[in-house]
């Protein structure tokens, strides 16, 4: 029983013990009401203090969260950094594709070239090889673009880590949309793992070794 309410009962009990007649007078009722009201006042005051303290804590937490969300700079990430990183990656895909096509066109022209005239053939090969060298310059640009994307990811990683620490974030399960869940299920079922980092998958020699063994029993 809370202390304030216990005090109320004690006050009323004390008052009744001072009386020895059976019939309560109007004065007794008023006195009892006064005791009850004073006791309730103390109870409400103690509740107020506890609630005030809780509300102050919540307010402090909200202020801290607002500050941390401000530091997180979500709009900067959403409006600037992620779109810029996406554009850089698109440019990487485009330039590698263009370079690959240029190199393959040169190689195909060399393979299909007429070799009956050695001088003309040599001139063509030299010209195509120079074009291949030029096309390879894409690597420098894509390297710089990828570095920018990596820098963006590192910035976001730092900000997310700070926010997670500040608000003591806990992951909630079951937040995937139905489409996301279906995508995850399909990836797992069809083993769509994608290219592995070095050491993460099998090289051709290991694949050949796996292939030469009997198929493991499904059970």
């Amino acid at each position: 029983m809370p202390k304030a309410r216990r005090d109320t009962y004690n006050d009323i009990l004390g008052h009744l013990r001072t009386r020895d007649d059976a019939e309560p007078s109007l004065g007794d009722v008023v006195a009892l009401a006064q005791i009850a009201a004073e006791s309730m006042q103390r109870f409400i005051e103690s509740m107020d203090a506890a609630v005030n303290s809780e509300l102050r804590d919540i307010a402090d937490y909200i202020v801290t969260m607002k500050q941390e969300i401000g530091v997180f700079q979500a709009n900067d990430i959403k409006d600037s950094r992620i779109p810029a990183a996406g554009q850089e990656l698109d440019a990487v895909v485009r330039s590698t594709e263009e370079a690959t096509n240029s190199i393959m066109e040169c190689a195909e022209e060399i393979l299909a070239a007429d070799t009956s005239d050695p001088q003309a053939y040599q001139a063509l090969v030299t010209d195509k090889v120079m074009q291949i060298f030029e096309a390879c310059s894409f690597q420098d640009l894509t390297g710089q673009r990828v570095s920018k994307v990596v820098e963006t990811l590192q910035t976001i990683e730092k900000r997310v880590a700070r926010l997670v620490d500040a608000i003591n974030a806990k992951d909630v399960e079951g937040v995937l949309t139905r489409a996301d869940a279906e995508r995850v299920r399909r990836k797992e079922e069809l083993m769509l793992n994608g290219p592995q980092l070095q050491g993460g998958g099998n090289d051709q020699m290991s694949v050949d070794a796996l292939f030469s063994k009997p198929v493991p029993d499904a059970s």
Partner: protein
Amino acid sequence: MAVDSSMSVLVVDDYKTMIRIIRNLLKQIGFEDVDEAADGSEALGKMREKRYGLVISDWNMEPMTGYELLKEVRGDERLQKTPFIMVTAESKTENVIAAKKAGVNNYIVKPFNAQTLKSKIDAVFGD
């Protein structure tokens, strides 16, 4: 069964450049009749219209993956004997074992070279 370079080959990949690379490599090995498909369902349609002596397929494609194509082919009485080589960046052990269980004839990990492609084709045809 020796390699017959006059046979039709179906190359299945959603990446045009990879199809071009494989087509060029096949040409160097001597295969001239090379068709292409961008995913498993397109490949299956072509296989039901034309007899292919060899299918070379990527794994990771949409909407039908190479793994699903392999299972469809092995489950189709008319197509099930078609030699099938998986050429893919999927290099995890579970992928290799699953493909082998599904009946793939050989498995090449990307990136690969001409010699690997040739040796796996030779191995499939027992040369």
